[in-house]
């Protein structure tokens, strides 16, 4: 059943992404990309590797986190209840079947699309690599700081706390979705909301690079707002978590801009960056040279007369 759901989500997100590429990025840019592809990928690969590592560590820590957090973490459910009380219940006061449907779909499909699309879109933007670099670093910071918070703070979301009279709308409306969300996160990892922080990060980036893809700003802003609202509307997060997510988004983006700024190219940050990138670059360059050589020898075998070119 969960496999069926994953396939479903993958197909929907792939379709949305394709649609986005055709409209937001544009056919011209897609056509011209293959010529630049290898160079673009080589330059951005170390960033993607970093993000991959952060995600792996993040996943490991999120699963390990809760049992560890119960021993060392700060239990803040009661503090959040005392702080905001019935806010989420008030949000749910406006519930309507259409809204529930909209927010459920946004929470799962919209959010994943929101994460996947900009990475691809900025990767395709060969004029300037800064948007892609900033996006990847900002994602990494979000996940890194987020998981640290999950270990330090342990709290249940509003749907788990009946005293605030909030429904777990997502799971009553669409019980199967919990099969996916439970795989991804534990129910005590709510502060801050990574749904909110990543969505805001993307919307902020879209604003910062609004000249790059002009239609992406309104789309991402609408989606980010919807995703953040959905976390509360569906009873998953507190307003406190969403505000914390907003702060985390600002911090992560500022951090990413600072870290990737050309001003720091000659400073220690730049030096560390180059050092790290060499770790990835050397094996990747070697591998790509080997592939190219193989490709050439294959071609020469076919034509069988021309001697292999020397580099």
């Amino acid at each position, binding site marked *: *059943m969960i496999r*069926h759901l994953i396939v479903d989500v993958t197909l929907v997100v792939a379709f949305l992404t394709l649609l986005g590429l055709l409209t937001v990025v544009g056919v011209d840019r897609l056509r011209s990309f293959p010529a630049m592809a290898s160079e673009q990928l080589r330059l951005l690969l170390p960033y993607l590797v970093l993000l991959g590592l952060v995600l792996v560590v993040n996943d490991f820590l999120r699963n390990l986190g*809760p049992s560890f957090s*119960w*021993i060392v973490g700060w*239990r803040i*459910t*009661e503090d959040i209840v005392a702080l905001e009380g019935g806010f989420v219940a008030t949000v749910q006061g406006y519930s309507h079947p259409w809204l529930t449907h909209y927010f459920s779909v946004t929470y799962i499909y919209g959010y994943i699309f929101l994460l996947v699309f900009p990475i691809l879109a900025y990767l395709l933007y060969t004029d300037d690599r800064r948007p892609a670099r900033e996006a990847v670093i900002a994602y990494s910071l979000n996940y890194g700081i987020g998981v640290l918070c999950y270990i330090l703070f342990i709290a*249940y979301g509003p*749907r*788990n*706390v*009946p*005293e605030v009279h909030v429904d*777990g709308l997502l*799971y*009553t409306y669409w*019980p*199967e979705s*919990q*099969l996916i*969300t*439970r795989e991804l996160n534990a*129910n*005590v990892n709510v502060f801050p909301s990574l749904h909110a922080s990543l969505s805001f990060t993307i919307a902020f980036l879209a604003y910062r690079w609004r000249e790059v893809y002009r239609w992406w700003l309104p789309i991402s802003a609408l989606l980010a707002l919807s995703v953040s609202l959905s976390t509360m509307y569906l009873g998953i997060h507190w307003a406190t978590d969403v505000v914390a997510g907003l702060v985390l988004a600002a911090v992560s983006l500022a951090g990413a801009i600072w870290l990737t700024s050309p001003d720091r190219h000659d400073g220690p940050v730049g030096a560390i960056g180059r050092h790290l990138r060499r770790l990835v670059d050397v094996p990747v360059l070697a591998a790509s040279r080997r592939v190219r050589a193989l490709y050439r020898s294959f071609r020469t075998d076919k034509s069988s007369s021309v001697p292999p070119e020397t580099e």
Partner: protein
Amino acid sequence: MSSRQRSPALTRRRFLGATAATGLGASSGCLQRVRSLFNRDSLSTLSVTILSPPSDDDEIASELASRIGSSLEAVGIGVEIQYLPLVELRRQVLINGDFEMFVGRMPPVADPDCLRERLDSVYAEEPGWQNPYSFTDLTLDGFLARQRTTAGEDRERAVDDVVGHIVREQPFVTIGFLQSIRAVRSGKYTGWSRYGPRSPLTYLGLEGEEDLDSLRVSITDSEITRNLNPLSAAYRENDPFLQLLYDPLVYRTEDGTLPWIAETIDWEEGETTRATVTVRPESAWHDGVDLTAGDISFTYRFLKDTSLGELGVAVPSPRFRGRVDLIDSVELVDSETVVLDFGSTSRAVARHGLTVPILPEHRWIDHTDEANVSGFNSVSGTTDALVLSNTEPVGSGPLRFDSVTAGSSLDLRRNEEHFLHANPPESFPDHLRAGFAFERLALRTVPSHQASVEVLRSGTVDATAATLVPTAVPEAVGSTDLSLAVKDGATPYHLGFDTSTGPFSNPYFRRLVARLVDKGHVVEEVFEGYGDPASNPLDPSEWTADAMAFDGTDPEVPFIGTDGEVAVSEAREAFRDRGFNFNEDGKLVRRE
């Protein structure tokens, strides 16, 4: 507790007072007055903490906690509800005894003697489900001892006294029994309601409608995929699955007992009650080693003290303490025979002692050392045996361990060597003589009851484990492929007090708290009608006299108010009558 949190402030005030007093010290006469002022306890508002599982773990308990909390707050008692995952909650309540109130299910009280385990003052200091309320009462101890040694009408009278006393004293507030509801796919297995919802015999008594290879059951509590130790008090409540791995000597059923790995039991009721038990000769452990009477004698010694004398202080297994305590001594006669001596305990109670799981000596003998694990500091130290994860269990049951994936699945396989499959006893009912109707019992974890109905509908599993929450029932009812198996519940929801601290040591306070719980209303609203309110854990049964049973209203602690709504001024009046005071803001104040 607020009094504890407040104490630094008080200390500071006292300190300032002392400083002032020293300053004034020279002017003599004043000192006396200052001292008597500052040494007097000041009034502070009462605030209590209720421990509750979150809705994900038990939506009924968390809803009850929320309702009790708001009733207490309405009257003027500050409440903080602390949400803990079930395992943490049990650890904090049952093992560390660190709580004021908690809401949850109580393990089944199958026999009045279970109440001895729950409330005898001899267990007040121990971890586990024996007296977690730290209740100490000479009168009750006397009644409990009497029901243990008597039989027939004498015992009935003794149990009446026990029930009457519990209902009056309210060491915990029994709220009610939620019915056990299980959803199953139609046309696969039948016989789901033959035994109690949590009885392992339920799975043995199933009949397959087709040629079926496996029975796939969804479970919402994934702890059994992380810990398979039958002795663990934090991880085990009363799931039936481990009992299918570890056989007892006998099973208790509604019509008496079913001799299991004991082939015969000869009772002797003279000066002491004695049972001569012979083991089924073909019994063997899952690893091939013979199961002998030596293992039985070992099990009782081991459950009484899992350190087997090595730690100086006995470290009993919390889960089976009450039952093992019934046995005074075990005498190993030969490899097939043991004699259990129950002392003055009557036979009716003694047979309860035969239901503990029998453990293989050769596997457990190595786990008698002292364990050191954080979050587990019992009063008398603890042994490795009690904290072991035991992820590859070796028992003697009709199912054997196959594989486990932490957090997601547990597979058990039919044990062909088990007497039930190899040589089913003539005396057993037909549905049991057939053994398991499947080769494999596959447990699959699902995140919620609601999701479990969806998974069931998709055909990935054949049944949900008992018991569905009422909010998931409409989903199941709406599907033609599914049917429901409903049985009366055995594990009452209750509100437990730590009766050794603060206002909870005052029975009048406990009774007043009990009177703020509208049991009838709660069963209607929270149980959605799937259940019955109860005045005590033996209500309703032949053990509760009519006068003590819940009958529209609680016989001793009737709700103050109507339809779940507390009548505040009346309730405050009731508190005032018992010497409690309220300040001008309507908050209950105490001297401390």
